[in-house]
């Protein structure tokens, strides 16, 4: 194990990034004897987990809960964090910023939470991150994707208390465009949810694709409000523009509806090419969508997530996926994996620093390399974003698995497609590198 960590450190150094430390997040953690010899810091380490538990997107809280609860159970089974038990308190954000801020305040000021993790939507995360300096606690975001959090709040305004373990909209816009550039399609159109996430993804997508493929056109846009039950008007107006590629960041319950109706109305057939569909759906490989749609999602569509259970093919990830499946009977969702990692990160952070002091934690986290089920991550100092890559893949129906799997992975090292400070240049950076062989 030690060698593995050393190898990772070497690997990261080769990338030109000097990490302050390396921690392993997952059930391969530090040896137990070493951990228990240290002094107990607190009776109970309390982690507040805020997510959406009610309403149409209530699934997303449930998916995150599976990850963080599993991690807490594993940690408590081997004696907790230096002898103190981990307790996770779940709170419903209702996707409302003011409600989430209230819950965060209560967690910290009344229920004694030491860390805050979770948080689903961009409006909520911006609101919560803003009060963290006042509360002086760490916020580890495991789902919300808005790049405003890291680029504006952390980098430009210097809010040091927010960190993010999930991939931001770079995956939904930039990486989607890099994948799109490999496809023959030239007339791209979008069907997006009508809110900030949709706009941000589409803007990033257009910028990157234009840079890589000056020959493409953007022929149509469709903005469907959240909770649309009938996508037919949007699909038919997009069909009218005769696109041969579709970019969509629909997610959750809207995605189910959209895929089913798009299939009926022939939107998939319109974007067919010889090896599949020019259909880019960055959040398509979300476990809830795959479990609901199963074989209905056509083979050959390009989808991704903020973590894929098949990737990376490491021992750590395999163990996590198996443990998750054993505990819950489901494969892990991306937000579950990031929540799992967040809890382990907190454990190692405390063990590494031997303190609950937030300032020390922030200093340690900056430039920290993490080896987790999600892959090697580096928390960038400037914007507190964990840098790791998630590839796109094509859907394949495989009878051996309960849900469709992905094949033909297309990926790129994260540092090439994550926007870099000062966030003015459009990725991908330094030429156009060959794809990683996965």
């Amino acid at each position, binding site marked *: 194990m030690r060698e593995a960590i050393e190898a990772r450190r070497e690997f990261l150094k080769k990338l030109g990034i000097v990490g302050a430390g390396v921690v392993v997040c997952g059930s391969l953690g530090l040896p137990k004897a070493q951990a228990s010899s240290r002094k107990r810091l607190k009776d109970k380490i309390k982690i507040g987990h805020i997510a959406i538990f009610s309403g149409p997107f209530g699934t997303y809280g449930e998916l995150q809960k599976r990850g963080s609860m599993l991690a807490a159970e594993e940690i408590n089974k081997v004696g907790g964090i230096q002898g103190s038990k981990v307790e996770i308190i779940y709170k419903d954000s209702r996707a409302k910023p003011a409600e989430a801020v209230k819950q965060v305040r209560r967690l910290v000021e009344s229920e004694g939470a030491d860390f805050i993790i979770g948080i689903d939507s961009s409006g909520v995360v911006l609101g919560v991150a803003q009060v963290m300096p006042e509360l002086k606690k760490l916020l580890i975001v495991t789902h919300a994707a808005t790049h405003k959090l890291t680029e504006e709040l952390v980098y430009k305004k210097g809010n040091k208390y927010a960190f993010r373990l999930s991939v931001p909209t770079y995956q939904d816009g930039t990486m989607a465009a890099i994948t799109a550039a490999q496809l023959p399609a030239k007339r791209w159109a979008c069907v997006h949810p009508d809110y900030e996430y949709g706009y941000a993804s589409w803007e990033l997508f257009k910028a990157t694709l234009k840079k890589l493929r000056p020959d493409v056109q953007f022929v149509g846009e469709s*903005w469907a409000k959240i909770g649309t039950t009938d996508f037919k008007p949007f699909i038919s107006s997009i*069909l009218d523009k005769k696109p041969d590629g579709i970019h969509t960041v629909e997610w959750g319950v809207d995605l189910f509806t959209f895929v089913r109706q798009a299939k009926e109305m022939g939107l998939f057939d319109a974007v067919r090419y010889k090896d599949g569909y020019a259909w880019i759906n960055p959040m398509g490989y979300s476990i809830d969508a795959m479990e609901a749609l199963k074989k209905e999602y056509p083979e050959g569509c390009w989808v991704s997530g903020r973590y894929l259970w098949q990737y990376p093919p490491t021992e750590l990830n395999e163990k996590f996926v198996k443990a998750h499946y054993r505990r819950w009977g489901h494969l892990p969702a991306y937000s579950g994996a990031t929540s799992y990692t967040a809890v382990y990160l907190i454990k190692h952070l405390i063990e590494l620093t031997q303190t609950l002091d937030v300032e020390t934690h922030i200093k340690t986290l900056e430039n920290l390399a993490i080896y987790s089920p999600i892959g090697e991550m580096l928390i960038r100092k400037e914007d507190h974003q964990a840098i790791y890559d998630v590839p796109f893949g094509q859907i394949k129906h495989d009878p051996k698995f309960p849900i469709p799997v992905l094949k033909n992975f297309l990926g790129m090292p994260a540092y090439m497609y994550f926007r870099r400070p000062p966030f003015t240049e459009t990725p991908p950076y330094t030429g156009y590198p060959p794809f990683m062989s996965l």
Partner: protein
Amino acid sequence: MEAIFFQILVGLSTAMLYWVVSVGLTFIFGVTRVLNFAHGSFYMLGAFFALALFKWTNSFVLSIALGSLAVGVVGLLCERGVIRFTYSLPVAFQLVLTFGLVLIFEDLVRFIWGSVPQMIRPLGLGVVTIAGRRFPIYSFVIMGTGLFLWIILYFLLLETKLGLMIRATISDIELAMANGINPHLLYAFSFFFGSFLAGLGGALTLPMCSASLGMGERIIIYSFIITVMGGLGNIKGAFMSSLIIGISESLCAFFMPSLTIAISYVILALVLVVKPEGIYGEA
């Protein structure tokens, strides 16, 4: 031109779904003068009941019929159990009471079915080609149901004794009571029938999308808009305003895709400023 025609056709199927749900609300308001905020919850219940029945019976027609009838019974129980005690209070109290019911139903559904949205397998009715586009046959089923409902209501209200009683109650309750109509029976029936329609609407959406939490909150606003726009309690008005909202939304998705989110409110505000009692006036 063909595209616009297709867009209108698509809007028509949306409109018919809105009509099925909102006529239930209109009917309840017309008879009992209660603005039932829990109508959206009944819509959601319809979807979930049909989902459960479909898994059990594997027959879509049966699950729609039984599912929406079951929702009708739930509506009846709500009326007899809770709502009837508030008839003497101002309309706002019933709004708050039914808002409480919405909260209760949301969590009951979450408790029973979990928070993961669920789908049934596609019915596989296929598509027809109209104006060079594929149009799902299932949308014709929805349109057919809507039109059938229109005819049934017309018949029910104009040709039957029950319809006479309902119309009498809608126009003047005191006079109706003086003529020996038992309003409580009628109130109970209207809640049964109105909730049945909400459940029918919910069950009908099932092959198109999923049964999910919070789906009631989205439809209730449309139902309110349609009910108010057509004239409170006016069934003909509800039909017309369903068409207006459905088709204008569909056209808006074609011409100004980013404004679809607000178009129905624009129309409602315009109609109300010009004609506060709605298109056809209050029943």
